[in-house]
């Protein structure tokens, strides 16, 4: 227990501390304080004219279309291209579609094992490239949104913002992290798999590759897609306790810094502080619950001659320490990262509910940039509800909230449960889902529910027992990822675009302060009611049913 608390403080506290200077730097970067670098980057993409919300959104969509087209082609033709020492063959087109959608949308849901599916070229120039630019797309969108809320005349320039995020934020951090990971034992080589003869004389082929570079940006950009199949449980992807600490730290630091960056751009750090506090409180609550639930021993070993005083070890790695499983599970789903440090399918039933809840909420720090964007939707609803309660016209920082803005906000928020619950219902009721589950009963339902939650939250982790490399799964989750990525980016841009078209009022004594504990509590209530209770019936059918019927 002592080391659990210590590790949590080290990672969450350390990341929170570092997020402050990082957020300050990102605020300056996106505030245009680095004039010469901005000039160079603007020239690269042919000028950086100020864009309104529509132009910014179209630029974002155009670049994301290029991302999709290029990587789709690269993955589809990998077998004919160089850097393929292990001779990976052509992948099926439905898997290519799913994988491309998955990495374009910053999800990194993986219906494959990297070491037996993709060439080094496909992993680096396809997937790793998307891990940079999809994260940069999210951060850029947040910068644009914040500028609009701040009352600037334009939202900035998308092409400039992506370069700022890629070269100014992600690249330097990735270089540092990749170097540290290489020192701890993550391979970085273009040689193919190693052939060895074991001490007992058997042949063993050990997959390796340019993993250190890949894993660093996987963690930093809230991507989560592993170089190897079992992600960060694989000893070559996460070799020791230090690499594990750095990985968990890297998962959360940029999403945290995004809140401060938002506060800097809108010039309301106290508001950002309230948001940060709400996110942190929910995250710590989830971590505490996960650690507690996972301390129960493996139920299946009851009655066998097994010592059971260490908690549930199925699906866990000893070198990473006992706390890694539940702590990583909570952090990776709070942030839409989706890398795993233990197999989520083998978590105790109620522990498995915690990552699901993280994906249902999807903004307790959330993805790089997009987590804070999701939070803006909840803020809009919280402000509106508060305004209705006291009978005043609701406004957010002087922007009047009217029918159009509310309709858009609710559309974006409601799309999340519709995609998750609709998809789960369809696959649970048909052979598409039923024939692919690995565990029977309530846990099998949880596998389906988790998969759609992960796709819709752009998270990417999974209950990996699910046999998800099928045509129905590849197409359904591919579509869900695309809708769930672009709708919640474009709708908030439209809402703020609508703010910008109206005259901004002055904040008066009657305006609800968004800088105090009252607002924080209101925000928390809206998040819990909207985000969590919607999913309660589904949770009851899955993890809760499994717990109450099978855990004694």
């Amino acid at each position, binding site marked *: 227990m002592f*080391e659990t608390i*210590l590790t949590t403080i*080290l990672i969450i506290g350390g990341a929170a501390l570092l997020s402050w200077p990082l957020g300050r730097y990102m605020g300056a970067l996106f505030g245009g304080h680095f004039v010469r670098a901005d000039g160079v980057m603007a020239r*690269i*993409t042919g000028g950086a004219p100020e864009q309104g919300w529509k132009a910014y959104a179209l630029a974002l969509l*155009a*670049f994301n279309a290029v991302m999709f087209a290029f990587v789709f082609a690269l993955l589809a033709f990998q077998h004919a291209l160089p850097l393929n020492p292990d001779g990976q063959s052509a992948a099926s087109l439905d898997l290519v579609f799913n994988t491309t959608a998955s990495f374009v949308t910053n999800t990194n849901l993986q219906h494959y*094992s990297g*070491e037996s599916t993709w060439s080094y070229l496909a992993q*680096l120039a396809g997937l790793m*490239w998307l891990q*940079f630019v999809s994260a940069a797309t999210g951060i850029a969108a947040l910068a644009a949104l914040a500028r609009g809320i701040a009352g600037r005349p334009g939202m900035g320039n998308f*092409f400039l913002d992506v370069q700022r995020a890629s070269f100014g934020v*992600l*690249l330097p951090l990735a*270089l540092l992290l990749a170097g540290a990971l*290489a020192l701890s034992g993550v391979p970085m*080589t273009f*040689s193919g*798999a*190693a052939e*060895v003869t*074991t*001490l*007992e004389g058997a042949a*063993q082929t*050990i*997959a*390796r590759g340019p993993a250190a*570079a890949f894993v*660093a940006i996987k963690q930093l950009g809230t991507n989560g897609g592993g170089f190897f199949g*079992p992600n960060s449980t*694989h*000893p070559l*992807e996460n070799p020791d*306790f*230090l690499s594990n600490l750095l990985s968990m730290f890297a998962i959360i630091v940029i999403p945290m810094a995004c809140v401060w960056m938002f506060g800097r751009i809108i010039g309301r750090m106290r508001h950002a502080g309230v948001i940060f506090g709400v996110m942190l409180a929910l995250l710590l609550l989830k971590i505490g619950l996960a650690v507690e639930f996972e301390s129960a021993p493996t139920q*299946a*070993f009851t009655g*066998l001659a*097994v*010592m*059971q005083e260490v908690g*549930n*070890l*199925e699906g866990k*790695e*000893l*070198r990473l*320490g006992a706390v890694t499983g539940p702590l990583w599970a909570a952090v990776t789903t709070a942030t839409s990262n989706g890398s795993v440090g233990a*197999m989520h*399918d*083998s978590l105790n*039933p109620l522990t498995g509910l915690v990552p699901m809840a993280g994906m249902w909420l999807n903004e307790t720090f959330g993805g790089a940039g997009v987590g804070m964007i999701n939070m803006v939707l909840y803020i809009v609803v919280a402000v509106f509800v508060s305004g209705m309660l006291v009978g005043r016209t609701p406004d957010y920082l002087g922007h009047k909230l009217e029918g159009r803005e509310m309709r858009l906000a609710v559309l974006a928020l409601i799309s999340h449960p519709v995609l998750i619950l609709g998809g789960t219902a369809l696959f649970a009721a048909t052979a598409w889902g039923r024939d692919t589950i690995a*565990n029977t009963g309530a*846990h099998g339902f949880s596998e389906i529910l988790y998969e759609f939650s992960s796709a819709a939250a752009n998270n990417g982790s999974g209950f*990996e*027992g699910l046999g998800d490399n099928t045509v129905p799964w590849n197409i359904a989750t591919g579509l869900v990822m695309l809708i769930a990525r672009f709708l919640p980016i474009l709708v908030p841009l439209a809402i703020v675009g609508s703010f910008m078209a109206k005259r901004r009022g002055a904040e008066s004594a009657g305006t609800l302060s968004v800088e105090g504990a009252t607002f924080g509590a209101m925000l928390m209530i809206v998040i819990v009611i909207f985000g969590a209770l919607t999913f309660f019936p589904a949770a009851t059918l899955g993890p809760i049913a*499994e717990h109450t019927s*099978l855990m004694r």
Partner: protein
Amino acid sequence: MQYLLPSLRLWLVTMLVCVVGYTALVLGFAQGFTPARANGSLIEVDGRAIGSALVAQQFTTPGYFWPRPSAAGYYAMGAMGSNLSPTSEALTERAAETVARYGATSSAPLPADLVAASGGGLDPHISLAGALYQAPRVAAARGLQESAVRQLASDAAIAPGGVFAPDPIVNVLELNLALDRIEE
């Protein structure tokens, strides 16, 4: 169309910097400063690669320490966990087989890590308790003093994360190599 040309330029520059440049820097650093690790932490004995220090390999003979169960069968080109629910009957059956293989009884129960499959199926470690549990079998098979084998395991034990993860663990391949060296 006005967004396509800047998108293509952005494609080119991010590809050059974030893929070509970044990969080259990390590769140069790793191969320059820590080449053994960069190539997979392979262990060579008499000039022959016998495994990776970071990757579990199968041991079945009684004279070696055995690793944790692997859902992947120690296949290092397709690592995976069992993905079984902790409430699963299939998991109970698998665990019962493991318990039988070790011959564990309720008076001498197995440490849980020897029964639970790891996340990737390639966990190179077992707990020190798991190693000590196997010491009598290993000693008998090799005709060694049990105390010598226990000592060897204890000497190989590390606390993976210091105060943050103090439970001692042992690298199975390195321990087995040390065993082989005693015999020579």
